[in-house]
Structures are given as structure tokens and as C-alpha cells.
């Protein structure tokens, strides 16, 4: 793969993570346990979607600058292939609404269903902790667009982490029932945390260029923070070492299909529709 394709792939990994967690979090809108938390999660969902937009805009710009042959080799989704065939430039919406599941590069953790408050909190906490350290480092990326996104995102992510850490402690160190549910959610989602730190070909290439972040360093920081919050929350770190992966390579759980069906329906059924 060329440098340009690695950069596009890297941008899309970050964008897809942001879109999918943003969509999952937005599913709480109107369903939160109390009005105040409903608004809190909806705010967070919008932060994620805002980041997704910036990154998709950047990705679309990169994509449109590729040669025709390169363009054909990036996505297998028919709708995008047709646009390439017709010589039409793509935009942020095309990337979100017209790619099929296997073209998405988000980690599996983020497509997992909300289930209950504890699952939602655990999933957010694992990802927010990752994001906090990741974007801290991405700020010094040699790529100016990515470092600008990181600078803006870090402020938002700092608040997300504060929110989810507090809920881990509230539930974990709360009643017997809340503790049981928090521990259960952590146990169930633990196997999805490893993928956050796997360095694929794209991650390695971008790290070498001084654009990407060293995920091995992030893992160290992540583990320390998770351990310390879990200690306050009286939550035990699961001892399972086997980790799920595949999302970054386009191999997803069945859940992504349902997300995309809901997310993409309008644009697929009524192409180009605006409101």
C-alpha cells in the first residue's frame, strides 16, 4: 500500500470508531434513566458525530485526490464503486451512508449493543480511556489535519472520561445489584478491549511516518488508568487473556449490520435525499 492509502485508511479507522460509538450512544436519546443523563449522553453522542464529520471530510478529500486505479482498490461497496466509475467526487455523507459493513474499520467494542446502563458505561469507559491517551499523543502528529482534530477532541474526551469513570465507580461501589451488573458488563466486554491496541499494517506505517500513535504505549497508560478506577469501584479486572479482533480489518460482529441498516436506510432508499 502506498503512503496515501495508509493515511486514508488511518483516517477512516478513527472516523468509523467515532461514527459507530456516536450512533450507539445516540440510541439512548429519549431513553435515558433520568432526563439529565439522557441529555449528558446525547451531548456525548454529538461530540463523537462531530469528530466523525471532521474525519470523514478529511478522508473524502484524500480519496478524491487519489488516482482512479487507487480509488477502485479502496472500497468494495457497490455504491462507492459506481461513483468512482462515473467520476463523481465523494463527500463525508457518502462515506457514512454508502459503504457496506466490510468497508467499515471500527473496532468491535464500539458496535456492541447498549444492553443496560452498566454495559453502556463499561463500553464508554474502555473507549474514553483509550481516546484520552490516544488523542493526547495524536496532537503531536506530523499530519496537521489529524493533530487539529486531536486538539479539539481531547477537550471533549477529557469530559467523557470523567463522566464514564464516575459511573463505573458509582455502580461498582454502589448497591449489590449495581455492583453485580457493573462487574458483569466489564467481564462481558473485556475480550473486546485488546483490539484497541493491536497494531495493524496501517497503524505501523503511520507510526513510522510520525503521523500515527504507538498503541503499545497507549496500552500501558490505559491499563494503569483502568486498574486505578476499578480499584475505586471495587471491580475486579477479568483474567481472560484471549481477545476478539477483526473490526479494523472489516470483519465485524452481526451488530454492525443492524446499526448500518438503521443508519443508512434513508439514503439507500431515497438516494441524495436532504431535509
Amino acid at each position, binding site marked *: 500500500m502506498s503512503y496515501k492509502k495508509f493515511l486514508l485508511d488511518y483516517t477512516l479507522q478513527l472516523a468509523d470508531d467515532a461514527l459507530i460509538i456516536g450512533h450507539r450512544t445516540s440510541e439512548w436519546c429519549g431513553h435515558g434513566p433520568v*432526563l*439529565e*443523563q439522557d*441529555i*449528558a449522553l446525547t451531548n456525548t453522542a454529538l461530540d463523537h458525530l462531530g469528530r466523525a464529520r471532521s474525519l470523514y471530510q478529511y478522508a473524502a478529500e484524500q480519496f478524491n485526490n487519489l488516482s482512479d486505479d487507487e480509488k477502485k482498490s479502496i472500497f468494495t461497496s457497490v455504491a462507492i464503486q459506481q461513483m468512482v466509475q462515473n467520476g463523481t467526487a465523494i463527500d463525508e455523507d457518502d462515506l457514512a451512508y454508502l459503504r457496506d459493513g466490510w468497508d467499515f474499520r471500527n473496532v468491535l467494542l464500539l458496535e456492541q449493543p447498549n444492553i443496560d446502563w452498566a454495559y453502556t458505561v463499561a463500553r464508554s469507559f474502555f473507549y474514553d480511556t483509550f481516546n484520552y491517551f490516544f488523542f493526547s499523543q495524536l496532537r503531536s502528529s506530523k499530519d496537521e489535519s489529524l493533530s487539529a482534530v486531536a486538539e479539539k477532541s481531547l477537550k471533549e474526551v477529557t469530559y467523557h472520561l470523567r463522566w464514564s469513570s*464516575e459511573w463505573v465507580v458509582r455502580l461498582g461501589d454502589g448497591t449489590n445489584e449495581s455492583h453485580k451488573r457493573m462487574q458483569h458488563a466489564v467481564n462481558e466486554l473485556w475480550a473486546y478491549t485488546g483490539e484497541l491496541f493491536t497494531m495493524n499494517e496501517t497503524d505501523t506505517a503511520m507510526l513510522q511516518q510520525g503521523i500515527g500513535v504507538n498503541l503499545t504505549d497507549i496500552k500501558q497508560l490505559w491499563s494503569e488508568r483502568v486498574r486505578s478506577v476499578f480499584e475505586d469501584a471495587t471491580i475486579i479486572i477479568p483474567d481472560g487473556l484471549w481477545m476478539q479482533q477483526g473490526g479494523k480489518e472489516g470483519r465485524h460482529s452481526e451488530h454492525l449490520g443492524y446499526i448500518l441498516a438503521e443508519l443508512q436506510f434513508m439514503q439507500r432508499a431515497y438516494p441524495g435525499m436532504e431535509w
Partner: protein
Amino acid sequence: MSNTNKSEWPLWEVFIRSKAGLDHKHAGSLHAADEQMAIENARDVYTRRMEGVSIWVVESRFIHASDPGEAESLYDPANDKIYRHPTFYNLPDEVKYM
């Protein structure tokens, strides 16, 4: 407050300072389990459109209010005391910016 649902979080009053140098103003109320959550909820509910730079919260039960039934005796006597307004006095021309 005997019929308050015990499982419900207490009510908090929220005060927001819109910018440095101005007073905190009452913005509304919300429910939260403790002061930390109250501040965070206030941030999410009342500062989403850049309304503030500082938040105060106080549990509503700690606010003591005057009795609306006593409004006449408390406030009406001030009605005819216009000399209490500084505008009642003529200012010398040399005094500016009052």
C-alpha cells in the same frame, strides 16, 4: 416532604455565571445523586449553548424563601419611597458615568 419518593435523587438549584466578572444567576433546577453529579448534570443541561463559564449548585432544601403570602407587607411599603432611588437626586455636571 413526607410523600417524596425516597428512591428519587434530590433536587438541586443551579446558578450559572455567563462570563467572568458577572454574577451567578439562577438558571433552573435538576436532579442528581450528589454535588459532583449535580455540577456535571448542570454542565450538560444548562451550558450546552455556551451559556456559562462557572457553575454553582445548591441542594434545593437548603434554600429558604420568603412567603408569597407576606408579599404585601414585605414589598408594598417600598412603593412610595422613590427617594430611595439614586435617580431622585440631581447630580452635579462634573460627576460623569453614574
